[in-house]
């Protein structure tokens, strides 16, 4: 995560960064900006890096899940005249729904802990203008910069219950009827 953060910091560098260089090359230099220095964009930039670094894991996870679907089920659906889109929506997705649920939970936990990215990438860190302040960063700063240990511990407990609530809610909201492979 730390390496990802350092690399993406260089993608967003104003003068020689990859993103601005690319925009320059394709003639969109009007879109160039100091990505991490503008409150309106900084958080989105961090999110882009976070999404990029998480996608690979879920590709592997879902690929493994999809692979474990018996071939005869997909075949039967194809013979019954299902197009690729219907096949995905009606067969593949319901059968891998368990994995999707797990992914939601994992992602929720990761999202609550954007600490490494924000701490390394953003100015301040947490800036500009507090636009990228995340809970983990607040906690860390209160504990180890301001030495408000009790306050930071309380934040940790609150964060834990928030995670727990969110997890329960997500499991609840994404609950479907269980599909059994016949």
């Amino acid at each position, binding site marked *: *995560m*730390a*390496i990802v*953060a*350092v*690399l993406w*910091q*260089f993608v967003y560098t104003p003068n*020689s960064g990859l993103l601005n*260089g690319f925009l*320059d*090359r394709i003639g969109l230099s009007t879109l160039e900006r100091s990505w991490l220095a503008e409150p309106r964009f900084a958080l989105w930039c961090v999110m882009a890096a976070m999404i990029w670094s998480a996608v690979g*894991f879920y590709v*592997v*996870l879902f690929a*493994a*899940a999809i692979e*474990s679907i018996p071939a005869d089920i997909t075949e039967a659906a194809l013979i019954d005249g299902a197009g690729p889109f219907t096949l995905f929506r009606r067969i593949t997705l319901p059968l891998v729904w*368990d*994995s999707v649920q*797990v992914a939601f939970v994992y992602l929720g*936990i990761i999202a*609550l*802990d954007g*600490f*490494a990215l924000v*701490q*390394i990438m953003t100015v301040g860190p947490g800036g500009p203008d507090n636009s990228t302040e995340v*809970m*983990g960063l607040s*906690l*860390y700063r209160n*504990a*180890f910069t301001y030495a408000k*240990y009790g306050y*930071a*511990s309380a*934040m*940790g*407990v609150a*964060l*834990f219950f928030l*995670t*727990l609530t969110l997890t329960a809610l997500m499991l609840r909201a994404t609950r479907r009827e269980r599909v059994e492979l016949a």
Partner: protein
Amino acid sequence: MVAAGHPRFDNWARAWAEASIGRYLFNTVLVVGGALLLTMLFGALVAYCLARYPFPGNRIVYYTLVAGMLFPVFLALVPLFFVVDQLGMLGTYHGLILVYTAYALPFTVFFLHAFFRTLPTAVAEAAFLDGCSHAAVFFRIMLPMARPGLVSVGIFNFLGLWNQYLLPLVLNPDPDRYVLAQGLAFLAVSQGYRSDWSGLFAGLVIAILPVLVAYILFQRQIRDGLTAGAVK
């Protein structure tokens, strides 16, 4: 933008020596290696006992351990800092190794517990009949049989611990003992204006290489580790 010139390896040398990437790498290998060794030893022992020997309180121990996966590091961050501090282990190798081990154990036990359950009981029984002690059955029969599982979870732990950033940031304030992730972040931040970027990037490559090699060599096992418990 300037097109790339010919490759220059002096960047690597500079990263290694001047930017102390070599030192960070040594620290990381030492800490992650030690933690991995302890995790696998304790994890395998605990998982084996829990999976194979029914005793009162078995389930309680198991769920207590597995519950560790549920807690985010942030919950215990501040208390953890004080525990390590009062034990006098702040910024030491063994302190970090112990914390890493504790951090990696729940998943290891969870994974290996499931794995030991799938192994046939007949082989162990045959060994017992032949007069093997409990310890010998574990080390000479069960552990070799569990090797695929051990490799999977070992690799998975290696990747997780190698990339650990928050724990060393809090528990390892001594710049001489920085691990790679910490050191690179420190370099990236502190170099802002001095801009020895080629050196920094050489350092990044050095940090990524072991992980990349592990991924390429152990793709299958990593996938098994990633999807354990998530995919039926």
